């Protein structure tokens, strides 16, 4: 049971760190994409959306190969940190950031596209700087999208399984997250403990989604979160 508590804490830590990193990455990315017009835009959007449809094992498999010290990325990381990327918490964070990227970018993108450019134009003529335009106009008017992006990323990372199964190595306190602990209970025929974790996760996911729909500006009319 104490292993399960450790797994829960580790999962929460992973989800928090991933959400914060993704918010920092996804905001400028979504902003650029929303303003960008180019022939190649479809391809860039497709790349960002890939983790939505790829089986997580595909992503996990390539990350495993990439993280290997026989590869440039794994080698550079090991030289810098002295630590191996596969089977480490840092590796999981990196994997989760890639895996949840569309969940952060897409709500922000949709919201930025819909934002009326005239507000920003007026603000510019009034002499507002770029940063204060973003802080005082974009953030307040897109607040629901930020909440949704944060919430979806968080929830998606909590439920992450396939990627971690491939690159984690099941080390308690380091890479043994909730879904892996659950998988282990099921495989080891410990159905009672599996039930406890699975049901907890079900309730949590339900509450998270209900909360997100409340935040969503569409109120009761829209089903897709944006």
């Amino acid at each position, binding site marked *: 049971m104490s292993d399960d508590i450790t797994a829960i804490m580790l999962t929460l830590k992973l989800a928090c760190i991933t959400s914060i990193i993704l918010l920092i990455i996804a905001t400028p990315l979504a902003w650029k994409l929303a303003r960008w017009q180019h022939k190649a835009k479809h391809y860039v959007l497709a790349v960002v959306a890939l983790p939505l449809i790829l089986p997580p094992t595909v992503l996990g498999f390539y990350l495993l190969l990439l993280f*290997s010290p026989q590869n440039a990325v794994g080698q550079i990381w090991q030289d810098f940190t002295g630590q191996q990327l596969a089977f480490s918490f840092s590796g999981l964070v990196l994997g989760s950031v890639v895996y949840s990227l569309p969940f952060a970018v897409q709500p922000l993108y949709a919201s930025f596209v819909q934002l009326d450019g005239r507000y920003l134009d007026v603000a510019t003529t009034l002499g507002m700087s770029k940063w204060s335009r973003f802080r005082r106009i974009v953030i307040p008017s897109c607040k629901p999208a930020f909440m949704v992006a944060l919430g979806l990323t968080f929830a998606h990372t909590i439920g992450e399984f396939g990627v971690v199964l491939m690159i984690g190595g*099941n080390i308690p306190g380091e890479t043994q997250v909730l879904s892996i602990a659950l998988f*282990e209970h099921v495989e080891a025929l410990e159905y009672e403990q599996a039930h406890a974790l699975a049901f907890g996760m079900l309730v949590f996911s339900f509450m998270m989604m209900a909360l997100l729909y409340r935040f969503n500006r569409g109120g009761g009319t829209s089903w897709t979160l944006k």
Partner: protein
Amino acid sequence: MGLQRVLLLIISLGVSGQSFGQSSQVNIAVAANFAEPVKEIAQNFHRQTGIKPVISIGSSGTLFAQISHGAPFDLFLSADALRPEKLVQQGKASDLHTYAKGRLALVTRGKSLASLNAFFTHPQFTKPVAIANPKLAPYGVAAMETLAHFFNDNEPWPFTLVQGKSVAQTYQYFQAGNVDVALVALSLTAKTQGDVFAIPSQYHSPIVQKLVLLKGADHTDEAKRFIDYLLSPQIQSTLQEWGYAPVTDE
């Protein structure tokens, strides 16, 4: 129009799915470590008897869960003894037999092994070691028992223990270059580019792989013929090539 197409698809799936229940075949659920040998054995069996084995590969734990909930298999070839015995206890299976004994191997990269002791007790031995999860895989239990010969339980071990969900995934960690040392099934290491050292069997308790005939099987007769074939001395003598010890008695 779209709906019609979907319905047609569902119907055709249903029809093709029925062939699963027809005669002259046997549906076998097999643990991943024995998948390669069983494929070849099944081919020969098919040639000799005309009965077609249909093989589903999974980890023993997953297959056990599926069988407990009515998966339509006739035979279950587990990686351990515990799960088949449990199915017999629950009245869901019969005809419990040992069909192979697994062997453990150490795979490493870049240095050939003089002795296990020298390898593990080398002061610079701090690299991560990959084993199968001992809670899930009998090869993981054997790996832990082997390591316990060289390392004390009371002090922290000088390396990180990385666990794969199965012995196949553990081997994958080694093959992909993420670890340089792994303890896996000897049966997996045939095509490795690393150095293989077969662990002497006295280092761990035997890895006994058992099979059972499942109750409510659609092809009981075919399944029994497959069991006889698999346990025949002629097939058992080939298991050594695959990295297993044959079953001598029982």
